[in-house]
């Protein structure tokens, strides 16, 4: 059992497909960050998912997917000190990506306003 199940979370979307869970995050977050499958949050939860994995931010809350083999995918949100740390980590990683892109002379790609399909973005 992941630590997620022992944390104070709220279920935003219940027993759905992974694709719908990702769409929900995209449509209901102020910021969206994309990470690879297996990305670790809250110390011990490796996110299970079809790439690209979307992580949403709304205020100080982190919005993410949680997949259970017999029940499907859920969209959960956690709003506490740990979520703030996770959000800071995501923003930091995004900043590093932009810096790396600038060093290579490419225009920075913002993950906050995704354009085109998720698959196209993942292939970039």
């Amino acid at each position, binding site marked *: 059992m*992941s630590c997620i199940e022992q944390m104070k979370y709220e279920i935003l979307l219940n027993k759905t*497909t*992974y*694709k719908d869970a990702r769409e929900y995050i995209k449509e209901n977050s102020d910021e969206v960050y994309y990470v*690879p*499958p*297996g990305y*670790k949050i809250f110390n011990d939860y*490796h996110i*299970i*998912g*079809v*790439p690209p994995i979307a992580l949403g931010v709304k205020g100080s809350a982190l919005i993410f997917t949680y*997949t*259970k*083999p*017999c*029940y*499907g*995918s859920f969209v959960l949100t956690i709003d506490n000190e740990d979520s703030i740390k996770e959000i800071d980590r995501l923003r930091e990683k995004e900043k590093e990506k932009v810096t790396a892109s600038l060093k290579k002379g490419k225009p920075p790609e913002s993950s906050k306003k995704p354009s085109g399909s998720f*698959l196209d973005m993942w292939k970039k």
Partner: protein
Amino acid sequence: MTGAKVLLMMGCPEVPIQTSIALYLSHKLASLGFDVTVAGTGAATKLLRVSDSDSYYVKKLVNLDKTLEAIIEDREDFDICFAFMHNDAGMTYAATMSSVSKARMYSIVFGRNAEDLAETVEFDCEKIVAKGAHNPAQLKNKLDKVVEGIVK
């Protein structure tokens, strides 16, 4: 391929043929010299353990989440992976495995919605699709051909 590490990934055991095919495939591959590990959810592993209480067909039976965690953290990996799926969650687990492992992927798609589910599988893999939920014969025959191809 003898000695190659094979992972059978079992999802929710709600559809009966998963357990029988996992037992069959594990034993078949082990008999051919593969090093087989079967990973499953708590319920799936319990069903398998009771069916094969002397570990005759399945020598290594492990927890699915812990195995994926070990692969993600580079503590373990496999050469070949057969991922069972009859629902979107099973496909999601397999997609994760495909992304974090170097294993050659085989998606075993079964159950009443097998064809629709197979269409949602976008990662690189060979799909073995059979509509059955109770009768494992069609899936067994298809897997026999796939295994034949692997050992060639």
